[in-house]
Structures are given as structure tokens and as C-alpha cells.
């Protein structure tokens, strides 16, 4: 696998070009987000936080990054 190749992933509904081989943890940090304050769903499967470093994003993956906001 080459680190140089970039891939397309869907992050929160938008196409995003990221480096091939990027882990979920690296993706989250590259977006300036605190991994402890968000929840990640990868292709409709929720990832536990201890999976963030082990799971890599692949071409065409659908990633949802969610958190808590104000609501009633």
C-alpha cells in the first residue's frame, strides 16, 4: 500500500479526499476534532474509541462523525 495515493471518502455526507491508509483516529485529528468527544460510524457500523487507531478508511467509505448538540 502506498501512503501517497489519495482516496475519496464520504465524511458527514460530503466527498473528501484523504490519504490512503489513514486511520480513523488520524482522520478525526486531521479535522481538528477531539476523538473523546465524538462518535464515529463507519459504513453504518459504530466504532468504539479503541478501534479508531486500528481501522483504516478505504475508498468510498461513508464516515459519520457525530456529537451532542443542544436539543429538547
Amino acid at each position, binding site marked *: 500500500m502506498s501512503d501517497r495515493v489519495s482516496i475519496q471518502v464520504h*465524511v*458527514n*455526507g*460530503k466527498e473528501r479526499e484523504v490519504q490512503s491508509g489513514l486511520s480513523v483516529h488520524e482522520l478525526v485529528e486531521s*479535522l*481538528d*476534532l477531539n476523538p473523546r*468527544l*465524538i*462518535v464515529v*460510524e463507519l459504513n*453504518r457500523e*459504530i466504532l*468504539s*474509541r479503541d478501534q479508531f487507531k486500528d481501522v483504516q478508511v478505504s475508498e468510498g467509505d461513508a464516515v*459519520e*462523525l*457525530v*456529537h*451532542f*448538540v*443542544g*436539543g*429538547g
Partner: protein
Amino acid sequence: MESSEVAVGRAVDGALTEPLRIADQEFDSRLFVGTGKYPDNETMVEAIRASGTAMVTVAVRRVDLDRTQSEGILFHLDPDEFFLLPNTAGCYTAEDAIRYARLARAAGFTEWLKLEVIGDETTLVPDTQATLEAAETLVAEGFNVMAYTNDDLVTALRLEDVGCVAVMPLASPIGSGLGIVNPYFIREIKRRCDVPIIVDAGVGTASDACVAMEQGVDGVLMNTAIATATDPVTMAHAMRLATQSGRLAYLAGRMEAREIGIPSSPTRGMLD
């Protein structure tokens, strides 16, 4: 405020300090508040403190990646200080609500959930069938489900049957501020269910919260009435007092209403 609280508390045998128990948890307030629509986060936190609430709802949403600094509510509300109750607001199907519920639990600090499945975009009234379906699944997955529902007795009983820890009938549509439109059915739901009944949605001002509590329910949940008041912090305080007043009035046992005037002063002993 403190002295009057102590005095009335004594008069009805500590009613104001008696905790509300939901599932295995005790709450020292019967007012539950939301965190949406506040002008700013500082006002929100101050209003939440002024309300004296024991439970605070939050919503699950995508992180807004277009902002330079995307702040979640956990930047402002510490789950160790506030009992946070994630909701499934905005979901229109059981499947979506279950998805949001699982995401909320994956945040890692609560198994509690305010289940909400909307059935109609205009009134935001719940889809009771989908709510029941989602409740059954989520209870089986170990969630403590507090189910937002219509002021419908049969649905309330079924939600209790499937294992919800509280049933939360609406006073009137979410965000409407219309108050309790059907007090009879709120009372009947309270009479017939064993789990705590929390009136959720529709409160507009303090008297609405008071009237809700006077029906004998266990608590009241609101967001818009506080958050969109001209002065949310003062309104939060008013809601705290109104919730306590309504509770006390219910426990005190109101007089019978009659459509006739009956003198309060003796009719005998009048001068010739």
C-alpha cells in the same frame, strides 16, 4: 426563596425534597430541561442552573465540519455535573431513532435515552406505532427508555408494557407553547400507568408548568419556553417555582370546583 421552601416543605411532609425515582435513579427536581435554541451557551448554562433541574436533554447531530471550531455541547455541559439525557429528536422512523440511540450510547456516559419518533411534520406529533417498535428494541438492548408520546392512554400503557422507564405524553405540540390541551387524558395516563409520567413539550409559560404538575404527573420537561423567553434565566427560575407550586398544590388536594358562588364569610350574624 429558601425559607419559603423550607416552610411549605414542612407543611406537606417534605414533599419538595422527596426525590423522584426513575428506574434505579433518584432525581431531586421534577423539572427537566432541554438545551436547544438558547441565544448563547453562557445563558444556557446559567438558565439550567437557575432551573434547578436534575436532567438535561441533548441531541445527536453531525459535527459541522465547515466551521473553523466545531463545538459540541460537552464543551459547555460536564456530564459529571449534569445528568445528560440524549434524545432521538428529528427521527421519523423507528430505524433512525434506533440508529441515533446507539450513537448516543457510544459516546460512553449514559444508557438513558429520550426516545422520540415524529410522525407529522406540521404538528411534530409522534408516530406512536414507530415509537413502540423502537422502544421495544432499545429496551431489549439495555437502554433506559423515556418515551415521548401522544396524550394517548393506550400507547402510554403499551410503552409501559414494553419496559420504558418513564412515559412522556405531550402537553401540546413541541415548541408551540400552547400548554396542556387535554388535561383529562394526562390525568388518566397518570392514573393508569405505574411508571413515572413526565409531561413533555408544549409548555409556554410558568402557569402551564404549574397546571401540568397539578394533574398529578411526576415531572415536566421543557425547552423552548425557557430558551426563547426574553430573559431565559429568569424564566428558568419561574419554571422551577411553578413546577414546585404545581406539585405542592396537587399534593395539598385542591377544593372542588363549582359553577356557583359560595360565600367565604358567615351568612349568619349579619346586622338587621
